[in-house]
């Protein structure tokens, strides 16, 4: 059984798709990468730093899968360790201090799954990001450019605006994981993808995101220019709101999910 949803999953995972760093290079004028969580290490799966958007400074935090096999391995295929989430939070708090907006790019199959990640508190690191992002006193926009895998993606997506590329996916569990739990058969991932409602259009219909970004001209200048302009315009809107209002709206947006 071939499904549209699973086609999107495959497209979202494709090696030929631009990754977060491609967006950073094309959208911003200057980008200075900043490393490390100041506690344990620098996680290659998270690329973060200060960029100029038109003439304004912004903090950029991105989960990066990499392109070449060598790079992908160095970046753990875009699966952040706890220190990746802690680096992200460190730079988001820095953005709050200096009143810079935060822009996140998300592309991950999920948080890193390993012994060290558990030892260093993967759960606690994600939990802290969720709490802190909810009250971060600066506008936050998160864009899903590829895969949005579960808590590891949500840890950068507690934002005022969440946008998804047309073929990006956002799911509580991978379709393979879902199929193997449900039917003891990961080969039925295509069916699972359908029932999980993981496409950008599903997320838009359910009110989880505000915009689906067209992939026409993907990886060409007009494509990046369109996203850049959308970001500039949206930051104007968000920046003009009183902080109390911004934070109340952010809280309400998540508060209403599943509220009867």
């Amino acid at each position, binding site marked *: 059984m071939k499904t549209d949803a699973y086609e999107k999953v495959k497209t979202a995972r494709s090696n030929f798709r631009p990754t977060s760093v491609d967006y950073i290079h094309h959208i911003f004028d200057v980008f200075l990468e900043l490393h490390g969580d100041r506690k344990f290490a620098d996680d290659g799966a998270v690329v973060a730093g200060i960029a100029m958007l038109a003439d304004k400074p912004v903090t950029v935090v991105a989960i990066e899968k990499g392109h070449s096999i060598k790079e992908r391995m160095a970046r753990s295929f875009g699966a952040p360790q706890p220190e990746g989430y802690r680096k992200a939070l460190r730079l988001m708090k820095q953005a709050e201090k200096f009143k810079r907006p935060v822009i996140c790019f998300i592309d991950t199959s999920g948080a890193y799954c390993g012994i060290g990640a558990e030892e260093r508190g993967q759960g606690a690191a994600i939990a802290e990001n969720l709490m802190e992002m909810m009250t971060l006193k600066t506008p936050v926009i998160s864009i899903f450019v590829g895969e949005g895998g579960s808590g590891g993606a949500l840890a950068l997506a507690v934002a005022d605006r969440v946008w998804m590329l047309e073929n990006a996916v956002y*799911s509580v*569990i991978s379709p393979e994981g879902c199929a193997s739990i449900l039917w003891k058969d990961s080969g039925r991932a295509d069916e699972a993808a359908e029932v999980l409602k993981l496409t950008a259009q599903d997320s838009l219909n359910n009110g989880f995101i505000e915009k689906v970004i067209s992939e026409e001209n993907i990886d060409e200048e007009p494509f990046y220019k369109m996203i850049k302009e959308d970001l500039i315009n949206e930051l104007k809107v968000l920046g003009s709101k009183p902080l109390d209002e911004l934070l109340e709206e952010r809280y309400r947006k998540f*508060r209403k999910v*599943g509220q009867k």
Partner: protein
Amino acid sequence: MAFLNFRLQPKNELEKGGRTSALIQSDESEPEKKCPNCHRETPLSELAGNLNVCTCGYHFRMNSRQRISAMTDKGSFKEMFDDVTFSDPIGFPGYEGKIESAKNLSKEKEGVICGTATIGGEECCIFAMEPYFMMGSMGTAVGEKITALFEYATEHKMSVVGFTVSGGARMQEGLFSLLQMAKTSGAVKRHSDAGLFYLTILTDPTTGGVTASFAMEGDIILAEPSATVGFAGARVIEQTTKKPLPKGFQTSEFMMKHGFVDAIVNRQKQRTVIRHLLKVHNRREDA
């Protein structure tokens, strides 16, 4: 007395952290009576009289009602938000049937019960997750009830005591369940920013999306001995890394050793310790 004596000495390999991934159980069977640690068979009534703890120290699972009644003052618990029940937001195949059997097994309507109570006279908001309702997995109802409880606690300037047990986010509700992690965390943050106290007690098992949200957001985090506590599933980690897991991986003891749990508290001591912590934090300078 300089220290509150939290912890009984470990009595066996299990309490020392000798658990393995094999003990992460997802079956929703009747409460056990044969101890997996010492293999002694204990009548259910006798176990219940001892807070479901075997004479060898092994902590059996406890359902949410038992737990609340064991921890709170008699007759003080007033349940709240019990009208919030399950929904099937993405029309997931077979979900309604699963909910029906979870209801029958647990005699509860959802995976958590919430309310207010006193513990040794100290007022608090309290929640206890339900292991026999789809292993305390978090869907919209669980997220909604916990969020509403924190909002109530913030409004009424009350401490929150929470017993966690969860297999994580409830897959059958798709992103609706994932986003409960953000929703509950937001409510915990507001409660915290209001200067109010939140105590979590991690019980077996606390994993996945609940670990990565409100379970790990307590001001003080306690855990029951030998409970499984972690984010990713042990079997998944074993398969992914193809490395043997260290002894006692993802137990309360492991989490304390790595700095993520404040103290391990035996069930018999929990009431005393919780009351003490509530008393310390419920003090108001202006009162």
